[in-house]
């Protein structure tokens, strides 16, 4: 942190909006497109892009028809043509619609062209259960993209990282999927406006007994549980992945090498989720050091249910994470 850095408090959505403003100000090649993103449409359904079209014009900030394939296609083409588009796919479930554009094109053009072209786009999308939106509006699908070579995946857990990771994503020469947690939008936090490098995890809380690895809202949950367990004398280290692909093995392995116990948590369905890869890499590298098998926590194997008690039981909650930590310590 340079001493010129000023720390201000912002909510997650304010931090995202600030990062977009600063990036567009810093580089005329940065563009924004998506449904409702311009000010005549109120600058995004959550206001994430508020003010951008008024400030930078509707040539650079374009509200689009409901045409996700054309949105991502336009972003890819503009990127290949030398620009840095930030495309918004309103909710993560809708990313299934332009899936071909993302995985068969954005992620592959650099490799298939032998490096002659690149696709420096950012795809912003939001998700997260808890708002009773039901089965088609709250899935975490990061595993699909982490399994896809050529696209990076980031998911901030706090306003400061949201700002720093978004700035890094926009300047990254490759496509980046930027996952925002809807329930965290209004959570305030310090924002230094420093760029957060893609591929670097953060030890969000130091501890010695067990390591909890997660991203997005799960980090917030884990920190709360860690605080609670500290009172019992249980020392929990929390590693915020921040980048899911390519993920920071060094930081994760260093932490688990120290604690000997690990819990991986994500809001996505547990089966075949990213926790499996992280647990496998930990096991492969720390065989002998690891005191117990890595605990994995994820959502139930079902669509996101509407009814409140089911929705709550579907996704990992603080008590689920606490139980997993205790199991890891057993």
């Amino acid at each position, binding site marked *: 942190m340079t001493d010129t850095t000023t720390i201000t408090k912002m909510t997650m959505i304010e931090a995202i909006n600030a990062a977009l403003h600063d990036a567009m100000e810093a580089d005329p090649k940065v563009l924004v497109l998506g*449904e*409702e993103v*311009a000010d*005549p*449409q*109120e600058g995004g*359904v959550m206001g994430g892009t508020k003010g951008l079209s008024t400030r930078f014009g509707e040539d650079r900030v374009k*509200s*689009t*028809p*409901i*045409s*996700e*394939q054309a949105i991502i296609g336009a972003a890819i083409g503009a990127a290949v043509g030398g620009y840095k588009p930030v495309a918004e796919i309103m909710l993560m*479930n*809708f990313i299934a*619609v332009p899936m071909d554009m993302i995985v068969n094109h954005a992620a592959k053009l650099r490799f298939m062209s032998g490096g002659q072209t690149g696709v420096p786009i950012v795809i912003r999308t939001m998700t997260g259960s808890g*708002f*009773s*939106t*039901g*089965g*088609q*509006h709250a899935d975490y699908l990061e595993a699909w993209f982490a399994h896809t070579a050529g696209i990076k995946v980031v998911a901030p857990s706090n306003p400061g990282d949201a700002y720093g990771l978004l700035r890094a994503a926009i300047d990254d020469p490759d496509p980046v999927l930027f996952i925002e947690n809807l329930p965290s939008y209004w959570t305030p936090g310090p924002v230094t406006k420093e760029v957060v490098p893609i591929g670097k995890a953060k030890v969000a809380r130091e501890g010695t007994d067990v390591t909890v690895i997660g991203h997005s809202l799960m980090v917030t949950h884990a920190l709360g549980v860690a605080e609670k367990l500290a009172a019992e004398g249980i020392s929990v280290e929390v590693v915020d992945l921040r980048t899911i692909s390519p993920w920071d093995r060094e930081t994760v392995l260093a932490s688990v090498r120290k604690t000997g116990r690990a819990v991986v948590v994500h809001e996505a369905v547990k089966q075949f989720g990213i926790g499996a890869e992280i647990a496998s890499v930990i096991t492969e590298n720390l065989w002998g050091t690891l005191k117990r098998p890595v605990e994995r926590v994820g959502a*139930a*194997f*079902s*669509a996101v*249910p*509407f*009814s*409140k*008690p*089911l929705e709550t*039981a*579907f996704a990992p909650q603080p008590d689920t994470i606490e139980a997993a930590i205790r199991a890891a310590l057993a």
Partner: protein
Amino acid sequence: MSNYPKPDAATLLEIYKKAALIKQNDERIIKQMMAGKLVMPYYSPRGQEIIPSAISVSLQDDDYICTIYRGIHDMLAKGFPLGELWAELAGRATGTCKGKGGPMHLTCPSKGMMVTTGIVGSSMPIANGLGWAAKLDGKNRVSVANFGDGAANIGAFHESMNMAALWKLPVIFLCQNNLYAEHTSMAYSRVVEKISDRAAAYGMPGVTVNGNDPDEMYGAAKVAIERARAGEGPTLIEAMTFRFNGHLLGEAGHYMDKALYAKAQEADPMPILRARLIAEGIASEDAVTAIEKEIEARIDAALTAAYEAPFPDVSELKRDVFAEEIA
């Protein structure tokens, strides 16, 4: 449109009964949400009541419909059981989907309501499949795909219209054009004024009607339904309308054109149809009031029962993922 069949008095009254149920039910849902008794994303159909009411009087229970998140009006017009509706909105085990689907995924196969989707454009490809099934069954059933003006710009619209025309499927593509897609007006979504003009690109008849006018809407729907039943293939109907409560309940609505909004309110189809029934002597003021009272009573009963019903058990997370319960 002058040669469209017109609804007779009894049919007009039937249309009003359906529309009144939709309107009063919407008002009650909003009251309950304001009171914090219902928590859900709500896409009010207020202002679009006539469209499904005028088409449903020509549909049978076993005709299929697919609709969208903004679809409670389509449901109620086709006879969705009010009790199961309210229980579902309240997330109760007695809801039509056991509380698992909620407002965006209402389903009731016994009334032909097969799919409600929250993904723009996705009602159309699935409605085609139901049309194909109906065609194979040989029972002259039809399949109605409801969608909005914004959905006419997504790829699924194109693929579905083309396939339906090619396969001569008994599908009615019912575009409820309420002038906005979330906060987006036509100026930001397409160049062509009439969505119905796109039908020509598929060799399908397409018409634009005032969806708030029971006569026009009834006539266009009847013609399309008869064409489909006769095996002559699909039709695109663009029904012009307006949504008075914006996209999602609670929004600011700054994106809306004030003058347009005011004009639309003056043309609110509900008081107009009500007045017409009385003026034309189709029903007396008292009779209409009685109908409305009776609807209120039905809603009272439905919501009371809903709130008294239990929430689904957590074990439901393992049911209906597959036909066989998962371990």
